[in-house]
């Protein structure tokens, strides 16, 4: 897996309700899966809520709802 610089903001760092725009998906075994599911550059992502352990995340991606773990959200590079 590609090591991301700590300066890069990912969807895992989004606060609840904060809006992020996806810039790309980090290189990993899951990148193909994430792109297929619609995590495309330019898409809007909002974390609506999480469980009391802090993972998985309940996200709104464009017009759909998706649950994903924090590790997977950390592969989604975003800008705000």
């Amino acid at each position: 897996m590609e090591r991301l610089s700590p300066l890069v903001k990912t969807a895992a760092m989004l606060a609840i309700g904060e809006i992020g725009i996806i810039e790309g998906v980090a290189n990993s075994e899951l990148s193909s899966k994430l792109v297929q599911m619609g995590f495309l550059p330019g898409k809007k992502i909002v974390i609506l809520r999480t469980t009391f352990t802090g993972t998985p995340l309940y996200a709104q991606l464009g017009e759909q709802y998706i649950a994903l773990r924090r590790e997977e959200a950390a592969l989604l590079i975003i800008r705000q």
Partner: protein
Amino acid sequence: MPEVKELLLVGNPNAGKTSVFNRLTGLQQQVGNFPGVTVERKKGSTTLPNGRIVSVLDLPGTYSLHPTAMEEYIVLHHLLNPVVLAARPTIFYIADITNLERHLLLLSQIICLGYSVVVGVTMYDTLRESEKNYNLETLSAQLSLPVFAINGRTGEGLEAVKQYLTEAKGAVNLPFLGAYTVVAPSILNHIKERLGSNNNYIAQIALQHYTHLPHLSQADKAFLADISRKNDFKSLPSQVTDTLKRFEKILPIQAAVCDAPPAPESMTYKIDRYLTHPVWGVLLFFGVLLGVFEAIFSFAAYPMDAIESLFTHLNTYLKAVLPDTMLTSLLTDGFLAGLGGILVFVPQIAILFLLIGILEETGYMARAVYLSDSLMRRFGLNGRSLVSLFSGMACAIPAVMATRTISNQRERLLTILVTPLMSCSARIPVYVILIAILIPQPVRIGIFSAQSLVMFGLYFLGIVSALGMSALLKPFLPNQELSYLVMELPTYRVPYWRNVTLRAGQKVRSFVFDAGKIILTISLILWALGNFGPANSMDDAERKIRTSYTASPDFGHRIAEARLENSYLGTIGKFIEPAIRPLGFDWKIGIALVSSFAAREVFVGTMATIYSVGADDDDALRTRMKMATRGNTDEKVFTPATSVSLLLFYVFAMQCMSTIAVVKRETNSWKWAIFQLFYMTFLAYSTAFLAFTFINNCC
């Protein structure tokens, strides 16, 4: 294109494929497995308006031809298989209009494989009037494919599709991405030549996924590995590029077809504020699990009692009218009892699958997985495993069958392997009698009675050992799939009853006919072991009783006892005595252990026979068991050490042939069923041994 011979249903998960399949095929469905795996393969047939019958195969839902999970691999294997390609099936692609963009991805890939495709668009009728601005004609023109608005629940639109299929001309699909290829054409030409294909996309996918394609020969794989190495080809980035390129083309199509995509279902948003709430959502999920347990524990008891009493009456009646021969016994105590033992599980299986059907169809199950993921993943399980584990507290048989809904193969196998450790209702009669012997007088500890605390402890032990074993076994089981959770949370919908009831019916049928065969065989073997003995030993023993105890009131019980003791079952009980003596068990318990392999509750009935009391007389049995001594000594058999040891043995041991039969069916091999039998017996033996030794030496 020649006439349509076979229809393949393809689409994303939650696209509405199941409803369409059920609509098209009706009740004529064959449910099996895809070769080599335990992914469900549903096949049926449908009749076209011109009377021609076309077979329909339902492929698992998948998002793309670049797979990460077993079900997705199955779709890839099937669509790339040269045999399938040569048979030229027509693909009926099901796409959800409310999420058209993502549903077009897989379609674009299918087009590139060269299949003839008909597109069915679902959920069109769920759109609000203001949102019905999708232009399906534009979609059809953009894709150069026939597109129909369909509804699997009402059947709307399906006749038009069938009509189209009768007249289908040979539409040749253009490659979706035009001349563009992700992999250099020179490389693709090499591969095409080798594979004897003229399709760029087939060559590209072969290069990207050759390690996972079972139809490729070792030589082909070596060839592709070589090409991959020489050109420094990286499969994963190329899959991402392929997908992104496709979306680049899909987004304008989506924009042309619809000016504004529908807003996410606001009802689903509102409901999920409660159902997926970190606290209320979890409590509610717990309530759902308790409800499922209650349904198969309590509600199912009524039809189960009815089935049992029907078979008991039939048994008694047949014994009364038929001559008292071995053949009658085979028919009644062997065959009929075995059949009753199979059918008695039907209510639980039906009820559990109706409930699971509702949970899946409404979309709630995805929320349950979301809520429990962080806890369950530690044990290598997921939220659907919890439904099985809770059901396992009523009965492991429907619970093991319910694991079909778990798509990750390792999570599913782990759930199957540990679910029978949950204390099921068949253990209760065993627990009750042994606890009564262990704690004869009511003792209170605080506000609780000691007896119920022990009972609670046994259940708790079941739960802890199931989760513990799962965590323990996890690293040793093969995991061919990536471990991740990126899961669509579908819009809440009212369940479609046809899907729910068809599925429950299929489950019942597969249990009765597949697992039933094994159960019947084992119960006939157990019957034979209990009714035959070495040489004339049983008759000799009976004659002895007849001459010495003529006037005794429990004459009949004594004969039954003598016959059982001298049967093969009795012989086995005595034979295994040295092995079970370290646990504090004598040969009488040995016989009960062997016979209760049919079902745990049989323990009580066998003990009643061995101790010469009536099967319904619990008090007498308890007294006899308490008085029982070892051989000719006055040492009691059921000391606290033995009782605890035997209780622990029943907590852990796989004393249930029906579960073994179901595990064999669900894992599609004897390997895991036998492994499970061994590990559970080992666990039972060692804990019973440790407890017996400890109590004897330290208390």
